[in-house]
């Protein structure tokens, strides 16, 4: 009994162990390469543990807090793989800048651990635990370049606003707790099972919780922090913030809604509808004439999470749950690949400058095709994937969302997706065009080994999943079937 529990927790235990080892390594030898090696091996081990658990163990609860099932393992593996690539990129970034900042990688592992706990959580206690583990590590990761001015500003903004959102979230949970007397997702579901319509207690609790989650996912109108924090944080942190932390939160959101069956409460869907609509429109409109790449990506991530929410909302239709969950999960995977790749390019571009800021002005990317054709090709691939051009993973993700939306008849939202994609095409192509211009600066851009390989692998993944997505689709389908 105890043994299987511990075995089921193997991924979490492995990663925790790795973090301890990395701490010891840092204590004895301050060597960034060594730390990075430990971290990447540790993440690989965690992935192996996840694979082992998924093959050998049945889905089970480990204490009421943690559930180990296919769903948790899918999100965990996405998070770990994402963290692995970002780890390599972060190493290149710091190594190139000559900053010997080992603790950064350790903080990242801690944050990743938080993400995995989120993916596994079936209870609000573990949810809050994971959430804060992700959040508190991120505060430090954002403010890491001590000499920077913007990073401090970004960290301050993120800290305070994230604190407000956490408090809102907790207050909502308190309401739900007050009405149901339980903190586990299943317990809440049982207590509200008889409700045709949500009681006002449930409604206010749910909207406060959703507001908190929407902040972390940077959905409008809780998105205001996103561009500033993305811009101010060092590029690897931004990549991490945009992917791993959001993936974990979305995993909880989806699991909570599926087990709580929140899709039957029209009032909640109504408010989520407006959030999704606003996110898609605001995100795309804000990105339109933006000249800073990181801000463009920030705004586009707002829009993309809006698309994701469309897939999520599609689960409200009768019989549409399976497809909607599949669509959301696949879209999230696509979003992970593309976003890590896009910020990966920014990371590599920023690594070789002496400037305190990251390289994110559009003008700095002019003529990249002539200076670094491969890097520019990768970046174009990422942007095309964000725009949803066929043969990239982004297309299939968007197609999935569309199919789910059509099946559930979410016509207004689909119209918004179409309009948003149209606007999106403009600003993505704008970047690509500016990369084909004659170069203005002749600064040398080094492509570091680790980061270059990470980026290359992500690009290959992007195309392979765009051309041959079947394995992932099957994986996602089986997980969705197990969940519903």
């Amino acid at each position, binding site marked *: 009994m105890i043994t299987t529990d511990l075995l089921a927790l193997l991924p979490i235990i492995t990663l925790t162990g790795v973090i301890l080892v990395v701490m010891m390594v840092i204590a004895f030898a301050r060597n960034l390469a060594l730390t990075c090696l430990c971290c990447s091996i540790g993440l690989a081990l965690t992935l192996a543990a996840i694979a082992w658990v998924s093959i050998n163990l049945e889905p089970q609860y480990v204490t009421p807090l943690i559930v180990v099932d296919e769903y948790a393992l899918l999100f965990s593996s996405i998070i770990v793989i994402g963290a692995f690539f970002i780890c390599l990129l972060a190493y290149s970034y710091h190594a190139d800048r000559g900053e010997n900042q080992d603790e950064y990688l350790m903080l990242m592992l801690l944050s990743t651990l938080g993400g995995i706990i989120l993916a596994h959580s079936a209870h609000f206690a573990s949810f809050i635990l994971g959430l804060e583990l992700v959040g508190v590590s991120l*505060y430090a990761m954002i403010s890491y370049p001590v000499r920077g001015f913007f990073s401090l500003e970004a960290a301050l903004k993120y800290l305070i606003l994230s604190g407000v959102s956490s*408090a809102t979230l907790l207050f909502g949970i308190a309401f739900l707790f007050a009405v149901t007397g339980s903190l586990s997702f299943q317990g809440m579901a049982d207590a509200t099972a008889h409700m045709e319509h949500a009681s006002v207690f449930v409604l206010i609790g749910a909207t406060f919780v959703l507001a908190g989650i929407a902040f972390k996912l940077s959905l409008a109108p809780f998105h205001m922090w996103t561009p500033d924090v993305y811009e101010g944080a060092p590029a690897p942190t931004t990549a991490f913030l945009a992917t791993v932390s959001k993936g974990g939160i979305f995993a909880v959101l989806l699991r909570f809604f599926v087990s709580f069956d929140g899709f039957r409460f029209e009032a909640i869907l109504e408010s989520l509808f407006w959030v999704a609509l606003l996110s898609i429109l605001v995100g795309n409109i804000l990105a339109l004439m933006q000249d800073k790449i990181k801000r463009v990506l920030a705004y586009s991530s707002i829009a993309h999470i809006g698309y994701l929410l469309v897939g999520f909302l599609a689960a409200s239709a009768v019989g549409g749950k399976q497809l909607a969950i599949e669509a959301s999960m696949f879209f999230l995977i696509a979003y992970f690949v593309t976003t890590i790749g896009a910020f990966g390019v920014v990371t590599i571009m920023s690594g070789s400058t002496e400037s305190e800021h990251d390289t994110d002005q559009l003008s700095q990317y002019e003529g990249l095709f002539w200076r670094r054709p491969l890097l520019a090709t990768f970046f174009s691939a990422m942007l095309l994937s964000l725009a949803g051009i066929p043969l990239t993973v982004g297309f299939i993700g968007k197609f999935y969302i569309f199919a789910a939306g059509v099946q559930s008849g979410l016509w207004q939202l689909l119209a918004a997706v179409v309009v948003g994609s149209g606007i999106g095409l403009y600003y993505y192509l704008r970047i690509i065009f500016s990369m084909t211009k004659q170069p203005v600066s002749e600064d040398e851009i080094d492509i570091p080994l680790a980061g270059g390989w990470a980026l290359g692998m992500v690009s290959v993944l992007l195309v392979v999943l765009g051309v041959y997505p079947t394995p992932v689709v099957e994986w996602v389908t089986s997980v969705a079937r197990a969940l519903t």
Partner: protein
Amino acid sequence: MNEAIVIPMEHGLLLAGILFLIGLLGVLVRRNIILILMSLEIMLNACGLAFIVAGAHWGVADGQIMFMLILSIAAAEVSVGLGLLLQAHRRFGSLDVDQASRMQG
């Protein structure tokens, strides 16, 4: 009967709600970072209060456990927050949070 039941849950929640909103008001209005962090503490404390009251209503320990979690979260956020505050004071020369608005648009 347990005497704790004497106090209606709604009243406890209402108190928690008001405290939460006062904290929120503080975050919205104050420009001094110390005061903002304090307001955050008020909000988190209000959440803790709500959990304890609801937990007492149900007679389960979950509420108190969440309170302890909140306590640790508050501690962690405050320590990081105060660290940043010291940095900000050194960098901006003041505790005005509006100084930190160079990124915009």
